[in-house]
Every structure is written in C-alpha cells, then in structure tokens.
C-alpha cells in the first residue's frame, strides 16, 4: 500500500517569511501598496513506453511574483532566485519600474471587504505519496491492459505524475493566506494498427485524491478502444450534419464561452458576447454554473489570485446570460465588483441535460459523432469556429464507420442556440460538460 508522507513541499512559515520580506522591503523603498505570491510545487513523474520505464522526472519549483503600486502606477517582477540579496535587488527594480510606468486610474489592490475569510475544508490536499515503483506499476497495468488487444501495437508513452503545491498570497492591506493542493494524474496513449492504417488515442484521469483516479485497467481499455475505433477511417463529402460531440470536446465550447465573458474582453469589446447580458444566447434548456467550492474539485479554490472569495455564479440561466467573470481591474472598467475570477473559472459546467446519450445519436438517420478536434479554431471576437476533426458516422443509431480529415465550422451565435445536452455529466476535469448535439453544422470533406 502507498504510505503517507509528503513530497517535501515548503511549509507556510517559510513562504510567509519570504512574503513578509517582500512587503516590508517594498514599503521601505516607497511603494504605497504591494501584493506578493510565493509558491512552491514539487512533482514526480514517471514515463513508460511499451510497458517499460522510459524516464522519470522530479521537479522542484519555488518562486515569487511581486506587484508594487505607487499611487495609480503599477509594475511586477517574478523570480526563482530567492536569496535575500537577490530579493532586495528585485524589489528595487520593481519599484524603479513602477515609478516610470504611467498611471492607470483602475490600478489598485482589491477591495478589502471582499477578501476571503473562513474555513478551508474542501479536501484539496491528499498526503498520499507513491514512490516511483508504485507509480510505474500503476501505469504499467494500464498499458498491459491496452496491449491485451492485438490491434494495439505501440504506445506514444504513458505517464503517472504526482504534484504537491503550497503557496502564500499576501498584500499590504493585511491579506495573508494560502493552502496546499495535490494532483494525481495518469495518462495512457496507445497506437493501433490494421490494414496499413495507424491511429492513436488516449485516456486520462486527474484527481486531487489518489483513490479517486480511474483504475489502471479502465484507463488501458478505454485508450485501446478509442484508438481501435478510429482505424481505417473514411473521408466524407462536404455537407451539413447534426453532430453529437463527445464530452471531451463539448467541454471546449464551455472554455470558449468563458473566454468570451471575461471582464477583460467585455471591457475592451473584443468578444462576440459584448452587450449580451440578460439576453438569450443559448437554448432555453441550458444552464451554466461556475462553482468554486466542490469538495475535492479539480477547479475548486478558496480565493482567486487577488485573495477575493469565490462567489458561486449562475452564468447562464434558461439560456440567458446572467453574469461575467470579473476581476478587480477590469471590474472597475465596467463598474462591477469582482466576483473572484481573476484566476478565471473554477469548476465550470453545464447543468446536466435530460436526454440519454443513446437517444441523441438516434435523433437522426445520419448523425456524425465527433470525439477529436485539432487546431485552435475559435475566434471569440466574431464567434467564428472552424477546426479539423475526426469521429464516427452513426447511421440509424448504429456505428457505421470512422471518419477523419474533415473540418467542422460555424458561428457560436447560432451553434449555442442549437445545443441539446445529454444527461451524462461527470466531474472529471475543472470544466465539465455532458455530451451534446448541435444541429446543422457545416462539415468540410471531399
């Protein structure tokens, strides 16, 4: 069994001391305000390939970022060289830079009243430590399972990593807090081959607690099945299709949506969702939530990178855009108070749909199922979307053949309104979506 012991991350006292030195020194040299983040993370990673060890890595990162203010002027430095002599040099450099940077009326520390206070009971840190041998055994078992299928001929490498982090965030308004987090991740990517066709696919699991990871055999068999399903694909003719997106793709639409409602994009007008607050942007059935306090949640946090508590946000209700993701600086620009999103979203998800996945893929005679996209084809200024894709053709609810080297394209304004969600939501990542059907998407093929 895995034994309990830490990966030797720095304790709060050590980090607080460094934070204190920075704040004190900044004040001495003339800053009117300052904030500092000191963080340490240690991770151990093993890579295997064809069931044999390929490499191991240990990384130990310690660093700080300091922001100093002189009135409405602001500048930042960051460094991993934390010898006291160097810190003094850096603080001086930061103050010098602050002096020559032009004033910006929106610059300031966050509102004190919004600082996080309270209990930290979300279970974000698992002390379990696996030595390298246990990590290797875990991920090797995943590959063993994948290779038990004769069409799996190779791997692109599989890995297991364990990361432990600690940090302290402090500012000259009296905020000083931090907490430890852990993350365990297993990844298995295999190569299938048949009749001259070679394809790859993967399975991935990442959790705060070791015990919550998918089991190795499940990882291996999922990766193998996905890679084999893709073999000997066809290219199809260009046409409009009703597309069912696998969960691992549909969550990307949520990420695109989140970038489009950041207060920074809203303030600058660089998003297709500017001026859409309180307007219908999705189908009536759609609700989107961002919730920071899910127990053991991959995206859970107590406060954002400014120390502000995380409000639970109902971003979309019955298809209507209800809120933005707001930090202090950009919030001031649009006359809104920060809702604790200077580090972005936390646990972002579509509320579960009502339709079983099986019904979605039977909703038409010919449905295209997409489980992989390639390229970053989302333009959040115009809402235009165009990516490369591969997946399966489903005919009368039955898997007909794999499809590859196609493109899918549309505009979020219309696509968002044509979403039907399945009822298969799971919380595997920080951003989670059920599978979804979007009707009438243009597919580029032959």
């Amino acid at each position, binding site marked *: 069994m895995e034994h309990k012991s830490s990966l030797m991350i720095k304790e709060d006292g050590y980090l607080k001391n460094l934070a204190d030195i920075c704040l004190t020194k900044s004040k001495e040299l003339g800053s009117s305000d300052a904030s500092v983040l000191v963080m340490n993370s240690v991770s151990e990673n093993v890579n295997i390939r064809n069931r044999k060890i390929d490499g191991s890595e240990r990384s130990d990162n310690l660093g700080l970022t300091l922001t100093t203010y002189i009135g409405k002027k602001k500048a930042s*430095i*960051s460094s991993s060289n934390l010898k006291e002599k160097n810190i003094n040099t850096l603080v001086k450099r930061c103050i010098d830079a602050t002096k020559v940077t032009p004033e*910006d009326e929106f610059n300031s520390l966050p509102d004190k009243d919004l600082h996080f206070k309270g209990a930290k009971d979300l279970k974000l840190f698992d002390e379990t430590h696996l030595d390298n041998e246990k990590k290797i055994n875990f991920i090797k078992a995943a590959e063993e399972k994948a290779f038990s299928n004769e069409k799996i001929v*190779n791997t692109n490498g599989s890995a297991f990593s364990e990361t432990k982090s600690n940090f302290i965030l402090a500012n000259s308004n009296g905020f000083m807090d931090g907490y430890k987090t852990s993350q365990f991740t297993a990844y298995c990517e295999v190569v299938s081959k048949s009749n001259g066709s070679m394809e790859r696919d993967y399975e991935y699991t990442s959790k705060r607690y070791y015990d919550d990871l998918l089991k190795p055999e499940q990882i291996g068999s999922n990766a193998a099945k996905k890679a084999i399903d893709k073999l000997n694909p066809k290219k199809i003719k*260009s046409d409009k299709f009703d597309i069912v997106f696998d969960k691992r793709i549909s969550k990307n639409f949520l990420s695109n949506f989140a970038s489009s409602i950041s207060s920074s994009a809203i303030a*600058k007008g660089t998003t297709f969702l500017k001026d859409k607050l309180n307007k219908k942007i999705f189908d009536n059935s759609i609700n989107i939530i961002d919730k920071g306090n899910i127990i053991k949640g991959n995206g859970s946090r107590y406060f954002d990178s400014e120390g502000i508590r995380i409000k639970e946000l109902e971003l979309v209700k019955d298809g209507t855009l209800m809120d933005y993701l707001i930090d202090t600086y950009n919030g001031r*620009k649009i006359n809104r108070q920060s809702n604790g999103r200077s580090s972005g979203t936390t646990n972002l998800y579509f509320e579960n749909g009502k339709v079983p996945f099986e019904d979605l893929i039977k909703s038409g005679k010919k449905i295209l199922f997409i489980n992989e996209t390639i390229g970053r084809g989302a333009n959040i*200024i*115009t809402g235009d979307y165009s990516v490369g894709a591969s997946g399966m053709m489903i005919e009368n609810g039955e898997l007909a053949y794999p499809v590859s080297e196609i493109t899918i394209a549309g505009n979020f304004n219309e696509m968002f309104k044509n979403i039907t969600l399945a009822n298969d939501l799971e919380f595997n990542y920080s951003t989670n979506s059920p599978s979804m059907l979007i009707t009438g998407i243009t597919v*580029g093929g032959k």
Partner: protein
Amino acid sequence: MSKFLKNSELTFEKAKQIVDDTLQSCDDGELYLEDTKSETIILDDNKIKSSDYSTDLGYGFRAVTGDVVAYSHSNEISDKSLKNSSQNLKSSLKGKRGTYNTEIKNTNQKFYNDIDPVEEKSLKSKIDILNDINNYARSLDSSVKQVTANFLGEKKNIEILRSGGQLLNDERPLVRFNVSVMVEKNGRKETGVYGVGGRQSYDVYLKNQNWKKVCDEAFRIATTNLDSKPSPAGEMKVVLGPGWPAILIHEAVGHGLEGDFNRKKTSVFHDLVGKKVASEGVTIIDDGTLDNRRGSLNIDDEGTPTEKTVLIENGILKNFMQDRLNARLMNTKSTGNGRRESYKHIVMPRMRNTIMLNGNNTQEEMIKSVDKGIFAVSFGGGQVDITSGKFVFNCTEAYEIINGKIGSPLKGATLIGDGPSSLKEVLMVGNDMMLDPGIGTCGKAGQGVPVGVGQPSLLIDKMTIGGTQI
C-alpha cells in the same frame, strides 16, 4: 571557467565531482545550468497594462542509460540540492549500466551577438515607443477600436557541465514585438495581428520608425477581413504565399521527422528514409545556423553545435532531426536538434528554422493555373497528429481564386491535410522563398521553444478548407 559557479555556494570542483560520480556508469547526461531574465511590456486598451520583469535561475541534472532518462531540476544551486538530485537519478537508474560517451565537438560558431535586449534600452523609452505605436495605429482610421502592442525581451545564459569536466556555454538574446489591431465597421469586428522578432537588438525593428510598418500590416489584415465573405467548405486547390505559411511544412512533415517519434515508430515517416515522400523539386532543410533568426542556436541544449540538416532532398526523405539520445539508439549522430524550453524540461528533438528551398515557378503562374481554389497568405497556429499524419492550420488572411484571378477575401478558416500525402500533392514550387518575420513558438509535450520557418509560394493540388459554405 564556469561563470555560473564562480560566485555560487556550489563550487565548480564540487559540482564536477557530483556530476562525475553520478554519470560514470551512464550512457549520457549532463548538468544544465540556466540563468534567464525577461521583460514583458504590454500596452492594451490605451494603457500600459503590464510591465513585468522576471529572472529565473536553476539547474536540470540528467542521467541517461539505454533508453531511460532520469531528470531532476531545482532552483536551488547548492551542494545539498545537487546531491539530492544525484540520489534521485541514481535510484531511478538502479541496476542499469552504460558507457559514457564524452565526445561533444567544441565550436566557436556564433549566429547572434552577445547583446542584452532587456537592458539595452530603458524601460521608459520602451513605454514611450508603445505609446507612440498606440497613437499611430489609432490614427490610421476611425474604424480602429482597439490596439494591443507588446515587447518581449529575453536573455538566456546557459552552461552545460558534462562528466569529465567539459564545459559548454551559450548566451542567447531574443526579442519579439507584436501589434494587434481591432477594427469595427457597420457592426462587424475583425482583428489583424502582425509581429517581428529574432535574436538581435530591438533597434533593428524600431529604428527609422520601422514599427510603423508593423502597425500598417496589422491594420491592413484587419481591414481586409472586414470585407471577407464566408469561406467554402471542402477540397480544393490551394496557393500558399511565401514566408509564414511554411508552418504547413512545420506541421505536415516537420514534427513527423523528429527523431523520437521515428525511433519509437509512432511517426508515419519512420520507415520511409530513402523513399519518395514529396513531389520532385521539394527540398526541405532544418537550419540552426542562420544569423539572428529566432530558431537559430550556436549550440543546442545538449551542447552539440547546430548545423544545416537536409530533411527532404528533391522529394526523397534523407534525415531525421536528432538529439543525442535518439541518435545513439538509432545508430546515427545528433544533428544539433536537442532542445528544451528551460532547465525545468527534458531535452527532445525539436525543430530550429525549417525551410523549403526555392523552385522555378512564379506565384503568378500558380494563381493563373487555378480555376477554383484559395490563396492563403497568413496564418495563425497549426497542429499535427504525428501518428495519423493529419494536420491543420488556421488561415488569418485568405482570398478566393476564380478562373485564375484573385477574388474576395475569405473569412478565417481551418485547413486540414494529411502530412505524407500533402507534400506529394505539391504541383509547383515558387522562386520567391521568404523567411517568416520571427514570431513562431512551437509546442511539443508541453514545452514551447522559439522556431523559424520559411518557404516560397506553393501550389497544392488539394486540401480541405473548413469554411461554412457548401
């Protein structure tokens, strides 16, 4: 003499002793020391949004035996920390024995000057220029609604200590200057982005108000896109402009020719050396030796002097790009392509400046020969699936071609192709080879490294365009 260990609590003698002791029974490995400082200044929405200065100091200690790599890195350059790393490497490679190959050729080659872009100009002067840029770009037309401009300067010093005491070093300047312009007309918004950069002084890009050309280009692209119509969907002929569109080469064949994927036989190219993989007339090189280019290096991150490596010659696959590990396992030599993002990362075979050489055709001939197709001039990013060979890239400036003439601008769209077949579908190679403006960063396994690309105009028989019009 080690510059890094001169004033450090870890002495050179002590470091050498630990390195020798750790690596004596390994095939390869080194202590890699890095000291980087960088500065990012961003102007956004009429304000200096951020002025960030950063320093990063650390080491990465690597031991390699057979095909197994053990790596340990830390910010703390001390006797104690290095000994911990040594223990860690030894336990990872427990029971394995190798023969250390000490041979790395020393070189005096220099492709960039020893300048420090972070310090050569005052912060104030850089802020002043950014404000000038903002004012100029906004004065170009009343349709300009947003301007973002930034300077990214970096100086990275590295030192490599190998078992036996061989010491190799490099000092690498890097700058990048970008302008993004958003225009709005009749309720429609479009952006144009342009940037320049390389391993040289900011002055090269800023003197004689050269920065105006960067603003003009960003504005031109944005304005062109205001008039763009929806792109077609489906297969058609594609004419690629010279220069930056060579990210096609980078994605379509570049990654697939990196040594690791071929040693592991996961690249579609692994058994194609000596075979025809591209049309006649197609020659592709990966060159680390071009003066002041973003992808150039005096030595790679294992200490191997960089070179000009021929990948494909007249359509025939000649060589893969190799680091020391993959070269050793494939019985060949390193081509100086061993790179890492920083001391926090392991070495992998990576591209430098990947270039298709000139052919004999003109761009005019290519366009004339196309009845229906698209002319793609500028791109955003690209991506490839090494195993299936499928790759994409995103057009940011493209036009339709109708009956041999350039027509309307088209909305941004993704192009998808198949790596091994797309280069066989090259119908004409232009005589107008251009290098990109110096802004490329390549990502692989979570590591970003600066790279360059270049190509002449190309006519490709068919690629699939990801538009909305059928």
